[in-house]
């Protein structure tokens, strides 16, 4: 709900424009304060902006970082695709069939309310400390946001659309792909946005937990061996990835669905 009003308004478009000076000043102040506090009060190994900037080129051109990044992003994408496909099937089913909705809603909402990381120990019991555990965690983390939004979208398809399609004797299959899915696109995008963030968290947490290679493990390993500055580069990348996905999806919504005021569901 909260994001609905402003996303499609022109205010958001000026994110890098008008407010530039106050933002720059605030940014410098934040970095300066961080630098000062660490220099004065913290031990040497603690991450600070100047040292991060110093190690940044070396880290991002180094093998371990690039490898970890590609592993984690590939795993996230893989899990996300599966969550998206499975979640859309279940969600559309729930949105279009009352029986499916009645049977599943309780459980979907219940699992969605569960903090996703509690499944980690179970996944490691089931799959061992392997990449399968990470994959399962990512899918679990992402799928419920997709299901709930897809169901919401499929339910919100205007009756008229369905009636017109039916009176033109449209088959079930075409109805699904040419009416229901396009009409619920905004909801699917909102679901995708939530799911991406969660999938990324799922991947990082699974890597912490199982110590399999990836960005999460890169952070864990470097911060444990007193290389906090190096570890922080990975945090910056993760933050950038989160923000980037958000902006990409907002942009996509504005570009292709400009009439839609986005609704945030289920976070």
């Amino acid at each position: 709900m909260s994001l609905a009003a402003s996303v499609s308004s022109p205010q958001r478009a000026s994110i890098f424009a008008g407010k530039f000076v106050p933002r720059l000043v605030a940014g410098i102040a934040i970095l300066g304060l961080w630098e000062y506090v660490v220099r004065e009060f913290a031990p040497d190994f603690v991450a600070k902006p100047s040292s991060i900037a110093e190690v940044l080129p070396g880290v991002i051109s180094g093998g371990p970082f690039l490898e970890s990044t590609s592993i984690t992003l590939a795993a996230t994408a893989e899990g996300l695709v599966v969550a998206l496909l499975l979640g859309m099937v279940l969600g559309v089913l729930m949105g279009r069939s009352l029986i499916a909705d009645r049977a599943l809603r309780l459980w979907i909402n219940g699992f969605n309310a569960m903090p996703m990381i509690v499944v980690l120990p179970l996944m490691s019991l089931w799959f061992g400390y392997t990449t399968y555990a990470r994959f399962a965690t990512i899918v679990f983390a992402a799928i419920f946001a997709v299901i709930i939004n897809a169901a919401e979208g499929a339910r919100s398809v205007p009756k008229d659309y369905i009636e017109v399609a039916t009176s033109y004797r449209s088959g079930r299959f075409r109805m699904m792909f040419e009416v229901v899915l396009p009409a619920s696109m905004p909801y699917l995008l909102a679901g995708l946005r939530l799911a991406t963030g969660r999938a990324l968290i799922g991947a990082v947490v699974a890597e912490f937990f199982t110590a399999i290679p990836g960005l999460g493990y890169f952070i864990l390993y470097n911060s444990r061996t007193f290389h906090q500055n190096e570890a922080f580069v990975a945090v910056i990348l993760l933050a950038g990835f989160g923000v980037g996905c958000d902006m990409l999806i907002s942009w996509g919504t504005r570009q292709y669905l400009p009439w839609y005021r986005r609704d945030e569901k289920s976070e």
Partner: protein
Amino acid sequence: MFAHIKRYAPFVLSLFGGLALWEIAGRNSSPAFLVPLSATLVRLVQLVETGHLVELFLSSASLFATGFVAAVVIGMPLGLLLARVRLLREALDLYIMILYATPMVALIPFILSLMGFGFVPKALVVFLFAVFPILYNTIEGARSIKPELIEVARSYRSREWALWREVMVPYTLPYTMTGVRQAIARALVGMVAAEFFLSSSGLGGLIMGASQSFDTAGVFAAMLIIGVLGVALTRAGLMLENHFARWRG
């Protein structure tokens, strides 16, 4: 009476159907993999009887409450301040947006190596998970206030206090409450994450310990409790949000 039955029957059916499915699936698979509902409940009763569970629950609850209350107490006034002072808001909103989108779990190793295993770093994790949704949504709310409203209030020589009471708070609070609802969910994730990755304690610690000793029933019992807790807290958050949503214009 009949209408009641008709209304709730699907939910009851779905609930018991799902539980039955769990029981059947559990009985037909290896106990290391899936434990039936009955065995999970037996384990749960054992945990309650030893008094262990209450203790762990209270430990988790105090962690959650400390971090979450700190997030509300700091996030709400700061959010309202940002709502009122436009320059401050414009200077900081980008950074709050970035922190809102940052997966906070990534900061846990830093908190661990800086602050160790105590209660304070764990509460800090919960706080970090919870505070940014509150700030972010409050700022969104502040953006939603039409400038005309403030202009009208000004031209009637409204005092600062009246402006807050009549315009700022009523218009931003519904958004803040959306943030509080999100914060509840995130604080719960933060709580479990802190209990997993800082020092093993509370309900998260129970899951960890059970999984390390291959006590699948224990894992399920603890997950069941956290799941129920999650549903209850989410409900509470939704009710809170809906209560204030009526204000929203």
